[in-house]
């Protein structure tokens, strides 16, 4: 069984004439060490898929299994604990707390999970080092560039023993070099065994994934097949 199993999930909002089907019978599995991108236009259900996978929202029907455990059968408190310990989130607008330094932002989820402040800070510093931004640890978010803020957000998402990384348009409004850097870090986290899902409308970001799943009008309509050998790319084409 895969680390993340989204099983026949549907999600509707509103009722009667305002009923909207955001997701219809969507299923997706993501193994440890794998990066899956979900691509689709605005309103295709990408964000709903991600928030349901991360237990931030309940599906109307269907279930999500994380490490074999069904979210549908968990209590509110169990889910909160699972989110703190297992799941890291990266949002488009970074969602850093303005009153905390970079280091404190990254340490926060560990402290909320009852780790001692000293241990939490040591782990947070290591996470900041991993994304190459340790020297900015003492700065507040508004003293950091967009690229630096997103690095802090990634450090916060993978700090501790997280196993699942969920990212919504993770490069936000960053330029393409910073976007590549963000995806490189997410890939790096996957190499250490984390399962990751990113949702994006940007093919550049999606192309970093092992598998790209296409969502349209709430349904998964297609996915990429694993690429053939790299060498096949370099076979001589037509002469110029």
């Amino acid at each position: 069984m895969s680390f993340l199993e989204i099983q026949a999930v549907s999600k509707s909002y509103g009722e009667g004439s305002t009923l909207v089907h955001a997701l219809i019978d969507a299923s997706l599995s993501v193994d440890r060490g794998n990066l899956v991108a979900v691509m689709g236009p605005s309103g295709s259900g990408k964000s709903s898929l991600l928030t349901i996978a991360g237990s931030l929202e309940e599906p109307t029907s269907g279930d999500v299994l994380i490490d074999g455990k069904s979210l549908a059968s968990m209590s509110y408190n169990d889910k909160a604990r699972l989110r703190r310990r297992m799941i890291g989130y990266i949002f488009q607008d970074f969602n850093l707390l303005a009153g905390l330094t970079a280091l404190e932002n990254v340490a926060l989820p560990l402290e909320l999970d009852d780790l001692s402040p000293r241990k939490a800070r040591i782990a947070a510093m290591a996470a900041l080092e991993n994304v190459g931004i340790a020297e900015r640890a003492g700065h507040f978010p508004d003293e950091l560039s967009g690229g630096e803020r997103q690095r802090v957000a990634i450090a916060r998402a993978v700090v501790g023993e997280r196993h699942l990384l969920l990212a919504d348009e993770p490069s936000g409004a960053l330029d393409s070099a910073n976007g590549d850097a963000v995806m490189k870090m997410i890939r790096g986290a996957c190499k250490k065994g984390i399962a990751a899902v990113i949702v994006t409308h940007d093919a550049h970001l999606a192309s970093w994934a092992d598998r790209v799943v296409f969502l349209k009008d709430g349904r998964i309509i297609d996915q990429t097949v694993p690429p053939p050998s790299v060498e096949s790319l370099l076979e001589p084409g037509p002469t110029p």
Partner: protein
Amino acid sequence: MSVRHALLALLSEGPKYGFQLRQEFEEGTGDVWPLNIGQVYSTLQRLEHSGHIESDDLADEGPQKVFRLTEEGKAELDLWLSTPTDMSSPPRDELVIKVLSALRVPGVDVNDLIQLHRRHLVELMQQWTHLKDEEADTDLAFALVADAELSRLDSVIRWLDQAEGRLMRAELEPAVPSTVPRLRRRLVARR
């Protein structure tokens, strides 16, 4: 793209042998553009004939022959570099024609055709990104080539996204006859 001009550019660094030019061309394009040696020599022959390069007449034909840039060749190279590359070719892309054709063929779902191509393009982008991730830090030429390919593929995907949206809207709102004279459109396309 002009292999001729790329060879002139390599010769602007100094006299070189034919096999050396081939090797430097391939390395300088990130090893994604293989050239056969026959093509190199036939291009050099044409450049020599047109006076853009010259060779040591005393040496035999073949690998020992050294080529150098002439003044005419330098002027041609400068002109090429300072002239905008012609990007204004008429929109006769095969994919565009295929989508337009599919609209007329009974029983063909143009959205399926769009998705088929979108997936194919994303798969190609995955391969380039994978290669770039492995090699871009060590090979600048390759990184530039990979960026160019990724941008090109991405722009085609954006067009497919746009086409899909436009077709969806067109289903909801019937088209209004165009007011742009056909002749003017043709002139724009030919410019």
